[in-house]
């Protein structure tokens, strides 16, 4: 009895499937007529009929633009510190710097700084005597230097923070304006750079600015040591 019922149900399912297959559902797209294709092929060889058309792809080739690799070799920033102007005391100094890193070892640096000279010992002791006017005490300089990363390394803070760093030597040429005169100067020194992030650099620098001057009556070689701290940002 059960076998008969099963056979009956199976026959019903088969009939339903074949019926569904023959129906034209709205989403069903019939294939191109087989007969018309054979006609096309048979007439293709006829000389009077036009040649079979070649299918032209309508898809345009995509132009792939490869993104440029950003270079961050340029560093712009400022510094602040103390400069010891020979005979005129230690004074605050502030300036701006621009660095271009050419290789992992060498970099160019341009700096511009300004300070204001204090009083000489003679002026301090003798009362009202003034060797230079206020405008002449303005100490401005620029220099163009070549730097060498002597000791590149890393700075570790705690267990998880590591920052790249470098101890560098630097030297160059420039100009110092002081006591109403512009003087050729050379500069040399050393600095330490640490990078807390990829785009920020912190600097500690010690440099000597050397030039010849006769600002106190006789010509002498003047050494002006400066120690500064600074920060700069890496650009393209």
């Amino acid at each position, binding site marked *: 009895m059960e076998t008969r019922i099963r056979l009956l149900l199976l026959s019903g399912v088969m009939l339903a499937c074949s019926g569904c297959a023959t129906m034209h559902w709205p989403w069903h797209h019939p294939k191109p007529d087989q007969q018309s294709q054979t006609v096309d092929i048979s007439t293709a060889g006829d000389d009077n009929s036009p040649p079979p058309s070649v299918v032209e792809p309508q898809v345009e080739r995509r132009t792939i633009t490869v993104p440029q*690799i950003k270079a961050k*070799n340029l560093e712009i920033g400022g510094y602040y510190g103390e400069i010891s102007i020979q005979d005129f005391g230690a004074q605050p100094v502030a300036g701006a710097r621009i660095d271009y890193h050419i290789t992992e070892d060498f970099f160019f640096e341009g700096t511009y700084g300004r300070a204001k000279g204090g009083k000489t010992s003679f002026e301090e002791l003798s009362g009202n005597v003034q060797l230079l006017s206020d405008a002449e005490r303005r100490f401005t300089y620029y220099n163009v230097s070549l730097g060498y990363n002597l000791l590149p390394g890393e700075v570790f803070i705690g267990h998880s923070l590591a920052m790249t760093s470098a101890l560098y030597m630097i030297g160059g040429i420039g100009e110092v304006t002081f006591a109403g005169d512009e003087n050729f100067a050379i500069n040399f020194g050393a600095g330490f750079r640490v990078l807390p992030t990829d785009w920020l650099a912190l600097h500690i620098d010690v440099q000597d600015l050397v030039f010849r001057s006769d600002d106190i009556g006789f010509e002498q070689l003047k050494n002006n040591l400066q120690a500064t701290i600074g920060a700069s940002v890496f650009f393209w």
Partner: protein
Amino acid sequence: MLRRVELAFALLLCVLSLASTPARAAHELLQVFITQPYLELHTGPGRGYPVSQVVARGDSVDVLFRRTDWIKVRTERGLEGWASVRELTLASLADGSNLKVSMGDRAGFASHHWESGVYAGAYAGATLIAGYSALSLTDNLKIEVGVSQFLGNVSNGYIAEIGLAHVFIPDWRVSPLVTVGTGFEHVSPKVLLVQPADRDDQLAYVGVGARVYLARRFFFRGEYREYVVFTRTNANEVNEEWRLGFGFFY
């Protein structure tokens, strides 16, 4: 005065930091596939920094940015490190072609778009400091713009100039060149018994020199120039100058 400088410095740093950070998010990254057995990633942009990880053949890395000869990359696992440009040029792009990065070599010395440099020298007996930039019209012909300052015992001054440089055989390691140009000179005489006024005059120059390829992007350049200063007096002034310096191309 210094207070104002300090404020300006602080403001500059704020602007610079703001200007530099949003660019990172908007930048589309280049993806390269490692074709060599492995790619070493260092902890910093230098040959001495230790290797912290390696990327296996077939894996890809995203290129973040370049600093000198090192490129910071991010692996598929999100780890970041520094790969040498030389090693990364062995990797391939998505279309199978090799990654090309300009390293600076003899070919670049012969043919480049821009060059810049600084000089030291002597101009009419005064010490000279000069800087220049040049745009290459062809490998042989360049437009040069320069500024210089001369510091002497008698007078100080500035020169701003524009001119043409013709490099005869740019492929040679030592390539001779000639220059011609014009500009302006500002002269401030130093304190004398009879104080003459500051002077602004036009000038022209011709020069002959050579540039010598050193390594990578560096070259040495030396030049001798003769300047004719068109003064307001009856006779023009003729000044000699020599300059030696370093330049780099990019």
